[in-house]
């Protein structure tokens, strides 16, 4: 399917056993339409899962990201961080669900999805969901859809940084928590193409 080099395949079901750790990272580059669906079951005590992802769209890409993180056992940790930038007429959907089973006490589960929209025609729809059936848990989720910060852009431009470069700097800083190690130059080039 040509996604091999993007670390994680676009679809996957993972069962993480006691004491094991799963790390997934995905990148959707400009020009790619993708359906990304992960289902992760944390099966035994101490299981951990970390998912990082980023997407970049500049035309009419359709990106669907669906993540189900199911805490089925006590003392499991999960983090999800998905950041992306939508330009052109891109259509992006994020649906992330964390389910904490009744006996999954001491769960720590975090999910963040942040999006920057570059054009009026790009659409981002984000639906974070928590379903918690245990009482001793630490869970949080956050989702934002915003634009590049005009004040920051002006500050940079007032110091002589050209507008395009100022935008690039801001986008790279927004993406930095989710850029996979070793792929900085590739992502920077993709950001410059937006």
């Amino acid at each position, binding site marked *: 399917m040509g996604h091999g080099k993007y670390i994680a395949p676009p679809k996957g079901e993972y069962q993480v056993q006691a004491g094991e750790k799963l790390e997934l990272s995905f990148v959707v580059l400009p020009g790619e339409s993708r359906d990304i669906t992960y289902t992760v079951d944390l099966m035994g005590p101490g299981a951990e899962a970390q998912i990082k992802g980023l997407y970049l769209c500049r035309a009419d890409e359709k990106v669907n990201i669906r993540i189900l993180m199911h805490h089925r056992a006590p003392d499991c940790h999960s983090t999800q961080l998905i950041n992306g930038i939508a330009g052109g007429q891109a259509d992006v959907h994020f649906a992330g669900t964390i389910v904490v089973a009744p006996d999954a006490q001491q769960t720590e589960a975090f999910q963040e999805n942040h999006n920057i929209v570059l054009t009026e025609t790009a659409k981002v729809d984000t639906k974070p969901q928590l379903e918690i059936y245990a009482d001793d848990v630490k869970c949080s989720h956050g989702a934002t859809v915003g634009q590049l910060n005009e004040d920051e852009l002006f500050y*940079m431009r007032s110091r*002589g940084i050209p507008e395009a470069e100022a935008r690039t700097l801001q986008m790279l*800083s927004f993406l930095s928590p989710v850029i996979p190690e070793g792929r900085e130059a590739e992502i920077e080039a993709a950001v410059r193409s937006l």
Partner: protein
Amino acid sequence: MLLEIKNLHATVGGKEILKGIDLSIGEGEIHAVMGPNGAGKSTLGAVLTGRPGYEVTEGTVLFRGKDLLAMAPEERAWAGLFLSFQYPIEIPGVTITAFLKAAVNAKRKANGEEEMKTSDFLKLMKEKMAFVQMKPEFAKREVNVGFSGGEKKRNEIFQMALLDPMLSILDETDSGLDVDALKIVADGVNALRSPQKSAIIVTHYHKLLEYVQPDFVHVLKAGRIVKTGGRELIDAIETKGFDQF
């Protein structure tokens, strides 16, 4: 003339704030612009540097003989204009080093010069940081993020020293500073003084002007310069306020 402002009118959100400013700044001159809150002092700095949201409705501004108002904010910086922000902006995720290296090299590129070698740039940065008594570790910090009010203002003066502008506009740089920080700012401005370089010090407060001697003092009120003079105006404002004008 370095800067020539003629009959400048500007609006913010449809409301006219500048109502016909005339101001000429020659080479090597320091001008103080004083006025009460709401007079249009910050608007003047914003309009001159091209901040979005400020619309010029009438008038002309020439900077080194060129139409300043036709230039993008970055082109104004390349031409040698600098604004020390009253409220410096935080840029999360971008370090001071990355920020200023991009700024210095963009200007060099615009002037047809090669990029500065990283080692030369770091040396220059270190020197200017020492000059404003900023600790070297600030170079690795994100721009203005978590800085105290005084540190932000010091960072503005550091940038001014590094970028070496022809005309610096200091917008209320003295507000909220203690005496030590005020002296550092004043030293920064005084060190920049040369027969070619000029500054506009915008303030509603006389304190900074005890350390930096202005050549001219202007009183800005309700969007117009209502009085121009020398140091004696500072004393007059100090004793009788702005109502006398």
